[in-house]
């Protein structure tokens, strides 16, 4: 697949688009990239609402 094509990682990506990369903190406070998850195994990301 041509990575320079128009399937860029805009915030309104849809099925078939490349997703944006992102870095978050894990529970130990370490930086982790979202790609580190999906590269090892297809991953379901559930963005949750406020908790409590």
């Amino acid at each position: 697949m041509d990575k320079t094509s128009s399937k860029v990682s805009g915030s309104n990506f849809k099925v078939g688009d490349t997703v944006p990369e992102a870095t978050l903190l894990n529970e130990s406070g370490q930086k982790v990239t979202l790609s580190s998850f999906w590269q090892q195994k297809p991953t379901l990301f559930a963005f949750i609402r406020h908790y409590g």
Partner: protein
Amino acid sequence: MRQQYPAIQSLGLQLVAVGMGDPTQAVAFKRSRNITFPLLSDTSQRVYNSYGLGAINGQRELQSGSVGAIFGEVLKGNFGGIPVGDISQLGGTFLIDQQGIARYVHRDISTSDYPSMSELIGAARKVGTSSKPS
């Protein structure tokens, strides 16, 4: 999603949650709800935004009936705890394959909007067959 976790795992996927609390809050929340999958921290909501997740829209809430539902819960005393994170931030569910391609996308449009499990499972099954381990 927690109830669906075993089914999700059996489809060959991993489940990762993203929340707005910091790592300490995430650990406490996981413990309180017996959550075993990772819960990452996006305190600035930067990633929520980059994934196109929006804010609560009052009109959509009224239309979906969730305002009445929330009042009902408050009256029953089911609103324990202090909210962690922006209470107007809506959530979403994304299935991403090993090439970084979105295979299922659901962005909640209101607080009572949920992803369709049947669509999600359908997408997960297709990912499972196309990304065979080498």
